[in-house]
């Protein structure tokens, strides 16, 4: 992350500023976290979170207050802070945990108090394991929390961040999603009602507990209030993580990353499970669910990747799709067999020979919505959006012409696959 521009769009507080991220610096910046709440105070705070309109920042966007209330209704629940960040192009959770570990831990402790959980498990990407572990140790030495904090290193892999996969990782060391029902809020970690919240969501919770719903809603749109962290990468001068008000116009958002050095062709929005949109169509749009819905896109986990005009969108999509196929947990037939089949067709489209677009569409339809988790649906969304956005390229490639070279813009981990 570059410090420049982090707060420029919003002047918000997820970033503690230039001071140190240790407990003393954190407390000086934000004040002590609310703690020792009585029953009425807990109920009032959950209601305040509901008024704030906070939603999950991991990609699914579920209302946080509803999840808190559902888990609080159960017996002896547990809280899991999800900092797995399995999306290889995203960095926002790691940046947040490195810069503001105590804000995340405040949120995890608060979530535990609000739900009546005695412990919170903090599952973090290995890059920030040490920072978060030290922050937790610092709190333990200070005797700050009544809740037990355990820091665990997350599993790697694209699907490892899905809530049920995180639970299974902690419980069995297997980072694969499990079937729904039961819902985790009813029966999760070792059968206990389990709250799984993305680490950024918990940081927002820690701020709402201090500053209230009205403050939270002073940024964002009435329907989608607050700020969110985004990762901007690709053809921008200053790639990195930004905190933006939800609904910030995409063109402005690219300006916050110091703009594109060359004309843009398309934007990949949300994540690798997200959607491509033509740059000309998308750049005037607000970065929000409402602003992107008719483009078939959404804010997802906050990824914005800019594809320059001289890069090959089909080639990029083929690389990502090959990666996603390899990242299937392999538990469900349509995903295990369908994603490699689809990836093969996208490869052929990009190579410009032997592609069968009719068969590709048939397979997209046969895979969509037919897994135990969201992985196949996300891969299908990506490929469908590529067919919409790069449709003219499909024709050109079939005629042996490609407007761009391989961009290799989006990171795809080597040795991926399971």
């Amino acid at each position, binding site marked *: 992350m570059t410090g420049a521009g982090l707060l420029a769009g919003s002047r918000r507080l997820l970033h503690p500023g230039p001071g140190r991220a240790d407990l003393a610096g954190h407390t000086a910046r934000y004040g002590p976290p609310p703690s020792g709440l009585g029953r009425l105070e807990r109920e009032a705070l959950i209601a305040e979170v509901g008024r704030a309109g906070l939603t*999950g920042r991991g990609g*699914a966007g*579920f209302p946080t207050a509803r*999840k808190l209330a*559902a888990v609080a209704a159960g017996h002896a629940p547990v809280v899991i802070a999800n900092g797995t960040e399995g999306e290889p192009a995203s960095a926002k959770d790691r940046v947040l945990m490195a810069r503001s570990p105590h804000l995340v831990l405040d949120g995890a402790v608060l979530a535990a108090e609000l739900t009546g959980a005695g412990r919170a498990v903090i599952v973090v990407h290995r890059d920030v394991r040490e920072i978060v572990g030290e922050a937790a140790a610092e709190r333990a030495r200070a005797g700050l929390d009544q809740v037990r904090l355990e820091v665990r290193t997350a599993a790697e892999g694209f699907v490892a961040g*899905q*809530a*049920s996969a995180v639970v299974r990782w902690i419980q069995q060391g297997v980072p694969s*999603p*499990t*079937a*729904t*029902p039961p*819902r*985790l*809020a009813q029966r999760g970690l070792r059968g206990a009602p*389990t*709250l*799984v919240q993305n680490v950024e969501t918990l940081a927002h919770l820690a701020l709402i507990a201090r500053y209230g719903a009205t403050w939270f809603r002073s940024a964002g749109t009435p329907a989608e209030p607050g700020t969110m962290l985004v990762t901007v990468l690709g053809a921008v001068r200053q790639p990195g993580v930004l905190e933006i008000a939800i609904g910030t116009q995409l063109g402005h958002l690219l300006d916050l990353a110091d703009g594109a050095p060359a004309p843009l062709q398309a934007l990949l929005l949300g994540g690798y499970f997200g959607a491509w949109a033509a740059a000309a169509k998308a750049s005037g749009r607000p970065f929000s669910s409402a602003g992107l819905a008719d483009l078939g896109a959404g804010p997802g986990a906050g990824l914005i990747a800019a594809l320059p005009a001289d890069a090959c969108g089909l080639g990029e999509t083929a690389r990502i799709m090959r990666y996603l196929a390899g990242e299937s947990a392999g*538990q*469900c*037939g*349509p*995903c295990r*067999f*369908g994603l490699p*089949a689809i990836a093969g067709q996208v490869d052929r489209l990009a190579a410009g020979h032997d592609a069968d677009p009719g068969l590709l569409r*048939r*397979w997209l339809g*046969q895979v969509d919505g*037919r*897994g*135990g*988790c*969201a992985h196949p649906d996300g891969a299908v969304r990506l490929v469908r959006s590529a067919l919409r956005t790069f449709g003219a390229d499909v024709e050109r490639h079939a005629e042996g012409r490609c407007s761009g070279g391989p961009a290799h813009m989006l990171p795809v981990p080597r040795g991926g696959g399971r």
Partner: protein
Amino acid sequence: MTGSARLRVDFIACDGRGLCAAALPELITLDDWGFPIVSSRDVPSRLLGDVRATVRACPRLALRLDARAGGHDRSA
């Protein structure tokens, strides 16, 4: 309850043996890899008996009849 029950597949449990599609072609077909595609419409009441028998017969216990319609939420 009748009229609002739908078939669901637990794809983690399913291993594509295909018995269900053979037993209940009115509601279940197979995809190109041999895994069941179930009708997303409500199960007609005249088929409820056959559906229950097919659900019981699945060797992987991967089929179920959901009494209440509606999508499922995977977020929690």
